[in-house]
């Protein structure tokens, strides 16, 4: 593997951070917005360039960048992508761009800091997706907290925004502890496996750790520690309560970022399952049941919601459950469907949340009681809402359909009852989405504030067109996405399903 190329992944991480610095140092807030927008656009182009540079017929890590960071502990600055992570980069960049455009006029105070934090969060998120060294990953993982804390607490729209920010942060800090323990166990295990001494032979690099066999006694511990850490972020029931609170208290574009950046399941996919392969196979049923509980639990609670933002939060939780069911099937269809669905929900959940934000901005509420008859005054907004809603229900002609189909085929092949549960979740999803639509968008206009509401402005229309088009195109040509992650998914599955728990050494990379 060639490592002497242009360090584009580092660029992806540091460009938004530089942009954040420039935005916050710039004197004029109008100029600051434009700087932020420019940086976010360049970042999107760079992320697309990464996709172009990516070779989909190679299942290994690519575009590796390696340099020593803390040599005494063998901690490296190791970046790389594979078929699982590559598409998250442009989507996260797109999401940040959308959040910047959506909050263009709605942020009145401290706007420079706001846009700087959005850019900083983008850079850190890119780091999470690219980092292949566990300590580096953990650093980026924890660094996402400060920007999100301030985004929620300073620009939230609810009266309890500080409490919500606190709640979010405490939950995430709690999730960080098991992650840290698991990382330490893994690296000490490496030292033991090469029969070296503890500080000298520690290793935190993911490719090396993947090649190090983990004894059976530690597999379950590591798997459950990692699962616990990522379940908080994903979020899985019962660690989900931060999301509805944040959805109600935080600004909608912040919530759109929170539901759009699927870091938790990415972590599960990237670290938890491959690093403890035999435990992952052994406990796949438990994972599936956890997914099914999350799916049905979230959907049932969403059925009772009267507020669009809360509803979307629970819908997002429910969809996480669906993805987990796909993962637990441990076959190609389930895995590829799960990755596809993750990418989808980056677009769908965040677009729906942004639409909720547009409604909130116009009417001051997303409570069904204060809405009613929106379709009459805002036909365009309703049309886009409807399209995204259909995509989240997995209706055909949208990208939700192939993803859901793959997950369900995978689940039915592996555990038929889970497949049936997933479909029950789909029926419930139609029920809660449509019954809210009925109350909020259809029917007669009852509120005077609704009568004079304005439809989508050109800025918002342009903003929503991009994800809408992507959803339709991917629904028509799902193979474009599936081809990119096919090889990686095969390698991923082979590693898990190898007869011995001992991992094959195909992923070893030459020493620098």
């Amino acid at each position, binding site marked *: 593997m060639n490592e002497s190329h242009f360090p584009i992944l580092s660029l992806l991480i540091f460009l938004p951070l530089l942009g954040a610095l420039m935005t916050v140092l710039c004197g004029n807030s109008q100029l600051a917005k434009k700087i932020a927008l420019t940086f976010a656009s360049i970042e999107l182009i760079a992320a697309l360039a990464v996709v172009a540079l990516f070779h989909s017929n190679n299942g290994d890590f690519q575009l590796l960048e390696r340099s020593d960071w803390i040599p005494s502990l063998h901690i490296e600055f190791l970046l790389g992508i594979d078929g699982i992570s590559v598409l998250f980069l442009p989507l996260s960049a797109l999401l940040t761009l959308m959040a910047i455009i959506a909050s263009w006029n709605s942020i009145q105070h401290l706007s420079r800091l706001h846009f700087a934090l959005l850019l900083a969060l983008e850079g850190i998120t890119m780091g999470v997706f690219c980092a292949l060294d566990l300590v580096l990953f953990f650093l980026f993982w924890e660094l996402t907290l400060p920007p999100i804390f301030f985004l929620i607490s300073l620009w939230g729209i609810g009266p309890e925004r500080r409490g919500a920010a606190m709640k979010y942060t*405490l939950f995430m800090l709690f999730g960080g502890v098991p992650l*840290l323990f698991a990382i330490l166990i893994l690296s000490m295990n490496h030292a033991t496996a090469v029969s070296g001494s503890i500080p000298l032979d520690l290793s935190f690099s993911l490719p090396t750790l993947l090649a190090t066999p983990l004894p059976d006694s530690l597999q379950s511990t590591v798997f459950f520690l990692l699962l616990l850490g990522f379940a908080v972020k994903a979020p899985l029931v019962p660690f989900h309560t931060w999301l509805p*609170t944040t959805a109600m208290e935080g600004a909608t574009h912040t919530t759109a970022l929170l539901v759009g950046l699927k870091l938790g399941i990415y972590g599960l996919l990237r670290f938890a399952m491959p690093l403890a392969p035999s435990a992952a196979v052994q406990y796949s049923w438990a994972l599936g049941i956890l997914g099914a509980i999350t799916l049905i639990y979230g959907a049932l609670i969403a059925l009772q919601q009267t507020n669009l933002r809360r509803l979307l939060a629970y819908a997002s939780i429910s969809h996480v459950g669906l993805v987990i069911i796909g993962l637990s099937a441990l076959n*190609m269809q389930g895995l590829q469907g799960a990755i596809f669905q993750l990418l989808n929900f980056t677009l769908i959940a965040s677009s729906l949340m942004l639409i909720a934000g547009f409604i909130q901005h116009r009417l001051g509420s997303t409570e069904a009681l204060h809405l009613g*008859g929106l379709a*009459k005054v805002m036909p365009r907004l309703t049309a886009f809402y409807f399209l995204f809603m259909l995509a989240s229900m997995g209706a055909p002609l949208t990208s939700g359909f192939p993803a859901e189909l*793959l997950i369900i085929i995978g689940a039915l092949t592996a555990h038929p009852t889970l497949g049936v549960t997933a479909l029950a979740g*789909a029926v419930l999803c139609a029920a809660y989405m449509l019954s809210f639509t009925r109350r909020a968008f259809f029917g007669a206009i009852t509120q005077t504030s609704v009568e004079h509401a304005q439809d989508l402005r050109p800025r918002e229309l342009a903003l929503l067109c991009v994800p809408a088009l992507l959803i339709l195109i991917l629904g028509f040509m*799902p193979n474009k996405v599936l081809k990119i992650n096919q090889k990686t998914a095969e390698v991923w599955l082979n590693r898990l399903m190898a007869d011995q728990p001992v991992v094959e050494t195909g992923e070893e990379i030459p020493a620098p």
Partner: protein
Amino acid sequence: MDALVLLIPLAPLCAALLIGGGHLFGFLDGEESEQTTSSCANWAIALSCLLALILLGSNLLNMNAGSFSIGRWLSSEALTIRMNFITTGFNVQLAALFSVLLAIVMRFSTHYMHREAGFHRFFFVLSLFAFAILLLVLSGNAVGTLVGWETAGLCSYLLIAYSYQRSIAVTNATRVLVTNHIGDACFMIAIGLSVAWTGTVDWNEMFATLPQLPTSQITGLALCFALAAFAKSAQLPFTPWLARAMEGPTPSSAVFYGAVMIHAGVYLVCLLRPLFELSTFIMAILAVVGCMTALYSFIVGLTQTDVKSSLVYAISAQLGLMFLECGLGFWQLAKWHLCAHAIVRAYQLLSAPNLMHAVHNNPIKPVSPKIAQLRWAYTASLQRFWLDQITDWALVKPVRRLANDLCYFDDHIVDRFMGAPNPVLNQMSSLVQLEETKIGARLDNNADEFAQGSGLAGTLTQWTAAISHWFEEHFVLQGVSKGAVRYGRELGHLANKVERQILRPRYLVLFVCITLLVAF
């Protein structure tokens, strides 16, 4: 010739995209562009009608190869789903029939919908529906059929909710779509099972591998497909959705529930003949459900006083007969019945608004006096055998109640257990406590002199009660409940204090730093 099949569903899809996009971005709006919209939709469906007729002709002359594929839609490991079409036999005949009927209805609507507020929306949905149904009948694999199947259901939702300002229309539309979604879910299970058991979704390949499957798998697969067909063709127990669906404009009722979409279930059963014939049990179910639906619809239809609702029950009765014919093995008859029924109903529903003029002074023939005497039958028929109510009672309400309980559980137990509960709720509960204290509840005094016994047994009981009460009060209630509550409150205040301190950003940053420090 086979390549023509691609254009048959594609033409209405292009029309739908043009109209939908144009309407969304404001190019097609208002009365002046009605002409553009309607001619776009009409020409598209006329083109597919023409192509379908050509395809039918070449099929009759045996010039068709039988299938046409334009490449992969999706592939994942061994599973490959192609975009392929069937170009012979019943599929082509139905495509030709349906496209002719659709062309007629589209032309009819051009004048019928003139100056309606949702003119463009109507033609967008109708074109999309034309695409869906033509894809449904022509697709060579189960996934293509499912795409058509679900899209058609969605279009029906959009047209039932056509006048969305009326909340009853939207409520009905939602109910219809959710009911249909159950059928869609069964279809999806069937697809998943056929991938798991036969390894393919292609209809012809699936039929070829079927005979090697064990009976249990055949039965399971056939049952799922049969349930999907029952839901789509409004058979028992799904029949009530059809009556709710008559809210839409007349042309859409004609094309959805009279002529085209409602027959999709029968089409599916006819298509899956090789599967159903392997399972006598499912054939019997088809026959029984069809027969019962026909009877049910006949009895309910007797008391309908509205043109459209009596047509609804006539339709479901005829569909029931078709299922009966399929179940008994008269496949050819069912196919002919389907085609003839589609034509007749399209005409009947389109002319339904005129019917009152046509039958003026021509009274309805009363039912025979023997039946007319049965009061219970009258009530049952009028109430449509309480099917909607039964569904509500058995399915909708329990789900709602469960959702309600879970909501409570989530807010009051999970959220509290996980820390940081919603402060508003706490205030609410203390207010409630205050009110209760005001009206005399002794919340802090558990002593009770209520139990008074007489006689030996009575006194003994009283003593026992007093002792157990004392025990309960001093050890269980005060030990666990009151003490725990007080202790918990103190702890809560302390936690609040700590939290308030931590809430300051500097502590937070410190916290993050400490965590990071531990890492290195």
